[in-house]
């Protein structure tokens, strides 16, 4: 029987995936769980982030999540009680020694840069300890009905940096000549108001999509501009405009449950020595909008990877 008493897992993000990951790890009996998230709770989180309720809006996600799970006094696999420690901060401020204190790291972040930071730290830890210390990094991501789970054994299998090429390209961007001279879609109109009209009108104030007066101004001007060009302005609802300016990604509880479960199942396999880095696929993609599809494969290391390539 595997002894889990010294196991400590760091969870990155306490959002849609994070809540699921924390719940699963607790039910798996991981004695020591740490969670970091710099965000506070918003109303639109509550259709999936089940560790929070309306009374928690404005509070730290990490703190509320930890309090919720600690309050349940869930028995850990080593006979103690599951303990969650929260960090309400930017994770890129963690130092390497702190990161090196964990058995493994599970990420449910939406930020690519934060993942790259952690990945770099972990590869360096493997390198500096001459492969003695190797902290697996499991990365989950979800969007609408789709998601992925990557299992990274730093220094041994493809690192996060090796797989950057698999990321979808950033949100649609439109040529300036289109949005300035020949807008055709409602998106073109919003983009112009946001990137040209706003800085012209408010040179000293950065646009903030969370402030109603800012949004109202964008919506009003977008409708004006749409009419000017004979573009159907009924599409410019508040939801639509907010979706474009904040680049909102649809999100639903069930997809997060599936993707987080895949990540935590990797944790089980790693902790109970069921995972063979030589043969286990390290990359799973999931899609649930047309039937249900999960596919796993091995993403090879990039020989010239800037982060882990030097190890070879």
């Amino acid at each position: 029987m595997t002894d889990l008493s010294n196991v400590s897992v760091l969870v990155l993000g306490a959002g849609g995936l994070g809540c699921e990951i924390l719940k699963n790890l607790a039910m798996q009996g991981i004695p020591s769980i740490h969670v970091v998230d710099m965000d506070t709770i918003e109303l639109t989180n509550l259709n999936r982030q089940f560790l929070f309720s309306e009374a928690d809006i404005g509070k730290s996600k990490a703190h509320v999540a930890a309090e919720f799970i600690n309050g349940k006094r869930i028995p850990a696999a080593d006979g103690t009680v599951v303990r969650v420690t929260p960090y309400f901060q930017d994770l890129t401020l963690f130092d390497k020694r702190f990161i090196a204190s964990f058995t493994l790291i599970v990420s449910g972040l939406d930020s690519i840069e934060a993942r790259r930071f952690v990945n770099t730290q972990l590869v360096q830890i493997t390198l500096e300890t001459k492969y003695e210390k190797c902290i697996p990094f499991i990365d989950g991501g979800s969007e609408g009905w789709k998601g992925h789970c990557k299992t990274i054994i730093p220094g041994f299998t493809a690192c996060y940096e090796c797989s950057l090429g698999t990321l979808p390209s950033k949100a649609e961007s439109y040529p300036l000549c289109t949005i300035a001279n020949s807008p055709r879609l409602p998106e073109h109109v919003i983009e112009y108001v946001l990137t040209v009209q706003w800085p012209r009108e408010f040179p000293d104030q950065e646009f903030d999509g969370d402030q109603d007066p800012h949004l109202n101004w964008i919506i009003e001007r977008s409708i004006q501009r749409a009419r000017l060009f004979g573009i159907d302005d009924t599409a410019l609802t508040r939801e639509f405009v907010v979706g474009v300016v904040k680049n909102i990604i649809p999100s639903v509880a069930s997809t997060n449950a599936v993707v987080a479960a895949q990540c935590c199942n990797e944790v089980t396999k790693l902790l109970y020595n069921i995972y063979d880095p030589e043969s286990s696929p390290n990359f799973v993609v999931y899609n649930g909008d047309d039937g249900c599809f999960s596919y796993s494969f091995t993403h090879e290391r990039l020989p010239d990877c800037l982060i882990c390539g030097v190890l070879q």
Partner: protein
Amino acid sequence: MDKYDRQLRLWDRRGQELLTEARICIVGQSSLGQEVLKNLLLPGASNFTVITEKMQSDQSFFEGGSLMRLNPRASIETVCWDTNQMANKHFWEKFDLVVIVTTYFKILEVLSKVKLPRSLICCTHEFSGYVRFISPHPHFVIESHPQHTTPDLRIMNPWTELKYYLESFDFTLEEDDFSDVPYIVIIYQALLSVKKRGDPVSRDAIKEEIRGMRALVHEGTTGANLYEAERFAHLATAQSEKVPDNLVRCFELLDQAPENGFDQTVQILLKSLKIYLGSDYSDKQLPLSGSIPDMISSTENYNNLKDLYQKKAKEDVKYFSSIVAKSRVHIPDTVINTFCKNTKNLRVVLPSRSLCFRPQATQILSQQQDAPTDLVKLLTDLINKQFKISDADSKNKMDTEKQSNSEMKSESKKFYPVISLIAGIAAQESIKILTHQFVPIENTFVYNGISNQSWTLKL
């Protein structure tokens, strides 16, 4: 902002309404059942009946109170299994969906004999799990939301107004800078030139023609619309009168739809669509969706083009509605509009007809050449886990569970993620089934958590 904003972007208010109003029954009180309930309460499903097997089983993360805060408007009625009451089909009629997670054979035996509404049955065993969609009827989907679609532009056979518009551009005027012309016009004119020369119409011939037009472009303009036209040249040869396979299948199965509710509506709409396609009006073309992709062009040219497509789409809906009206069943205009916009992407799946697996199911599977051996074993284990426990066994099992030492319990802890995963898929399929949006699994989905592989099987 709405609490449900992030999911309304997937299934809209219509889907949300159906989900909120749906009456859902969950049979079984295991962790799997609790996780399914959580995953359905979160997006706003509000009417639940949970049938318990009388005996308390494994430890759960979600107790009554913590579940209710996920959706304070929800009603969760918990009732004990009662064979007398539940062997009667009238008990089940009131539900829109039944999710079965129980492994009690006595209950499953009763359920397999009674007429159930659309149901899902699921189970996990160690690192594997399955979800099965059960219904005696085909399941139709109007809004399948395909990720990628080919626009229906009718370049090959434009209707009169479109033809007139496409021919109104004159590319022979050398002094003219045609960088404001949308690609559909360019492709159409290239097609005309190829035809005029008497050359066979092919994608390559049209591309070649467009490349030739690039030589005419004034220096200083990018000719970006010409590059775009070349990229989309294949749209010229799209056979818009060919009924897509997914729609053919809908036509084939429409008579098996029950004559009530959504299915009756779909049945009438599909029958009307058949009549529509056979009419002189349609010229074998499906109703136009009315939406066109963005194309590099001036605002004015794009708006004019868009207006033409929308006007034609409205005319098609009008004619289609006149056929629907003959059925004497009232179908709201919004439903007809949605149907007409989606005719190219209508889908149907055939769920499993019975709750139990046929005895020879795994045998048949193992005889299929490409069936992985681990899949056969895995499915056999899953079926045994869900169906092969006699009540005497389960009593014994409960006793051992009561006495079980902490080692046994921590052993089972490691499989919790697979329970959570199968509950996620069961909830996702529930939402797709209840909203009639997106396409549910066709019959049985099997997951292997060791290899992270999955299969969809017709068993």
